[in-house]
């Protein structure tokens, strides 16, 4: 099963990016093969709809679960239609979050925000 995380750097030992749609990279991690792959987020420079485009990238890469600190409304709609589950990350690195996910310690992300729509965090 493939899981994804927004990342500031292409490195498992670095922290998860606080933003989903505007994260520089996505980590795609395969829980069976333990392979990790970093993708550039093509949505980062979008004028609008970054969350939609970022969620599209995950859907196109056959991701089944997103691990993120937060997620906007439109992104959530794409993810839910694509049947991708959303989990809330714990503070720390991508590696720590992978371990927590495997140990089923992450909770489902419920607080979906209405999006920033040009008003940056």
């Amino acid at each position: 099963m493939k899981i994804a995380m927004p990342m500031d750097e292409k490195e498992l030992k670095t922290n998860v990016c606080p933003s989903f749609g505007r994260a520089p990279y996505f980590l795609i991690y395969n829980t069976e093969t333990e392979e990790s792959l970093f993708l550039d987020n093509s949505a980062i420079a979008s004028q609008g709809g970054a969350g939609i485009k970022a969620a599209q990238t995950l859907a196109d890469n056959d991701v089944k679960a997103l691990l993120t600190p937060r997620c906007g409304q439109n992104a959530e709609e794409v993810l839910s239609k694509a049947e991708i589950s959303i989990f809330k990350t714990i503070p720390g690195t991508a590696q720590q979050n992978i371990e927590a996910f495997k140990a089923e310690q992450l909770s489902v992300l419920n607080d979906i925000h209405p999006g920033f729509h040009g008003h940056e965090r």
Partner: protein
Amino acid sequence: MKGKDMKIAVLSGKGGTGKTLVSVNLASAADNAVYVDCDVEEPDGHLFFKPKVVSNEQITIKMPSVDDALCNGCRKCVDFCKFNALAFIKDRPCVFEDVCHSCGGCVLVCPEKAITETDRMIGEIKRGVSGSVTVYTGMLKPGEESGVPIIKRIMQASEADENALKIIDCPPGSACVVVESIKDADYCVLVAEPTVFGVHNLNMVYELVRLFNKPFGVVLNKCLDGENPAEKFCVERDIPVIGRIPFDTELGELNSNAKIVVRESEKYKDLFFALLQTIMKEVRHETVADSKR
């Protein structure tokens, strides 16, 4: 441009500086004026004019709608949309209406003609009469993303009222809605408050009108004795100060009771009449200067 067909836009960097006070009273000081409320998110000029509404028009925008039976899943529409208003999930595109800019591009690129456009109501414009003033009010439905289509339409509709001075009450700030409102203006009036914060807001609209090469002048509102940072800003940049409105209890009371001060007080009738004359002179001067360029 005939003198009477002049368009004057009133703007400021934030709400509450006195745009509506200035616009409503300039329109009321003229013999024959059209007041156009482009502050479509919170139009309040009509509260002063209490116009007798003679017509209204619903404003719609185009939204794509996908016929799943005709769609072949080629994804061309999704790839084309630079606003990311389309996502491709489970082999079919889905539309995000709040992100869509109604450009119609997806309809054009679809090889199967599976996308059609449907109307979505986003607000309305009202035309009414109050004394010698024709009042146009644009109203955006709460929750809608952009007032630009309403402003476009209201400016077009107000063209029907010929031989009248047009006063455009702009939305606050310097975003797209303001750009649309001042597009055809012959002159811009910037309303400023006498505070450091007021200077910051004045600077936003000052940069905007300069960018669009509009002739402009500043009205200093809420003037008190002593230092006025907004005035200092104007003096340092050689910006014409075309009027001063005092921080006055009488004015405040009339205005907060939704009275048009020009219609209630001789003092303010004189003040706004003089301001209107100054603006007319400035515009004529600009027109002459422009023809010499």
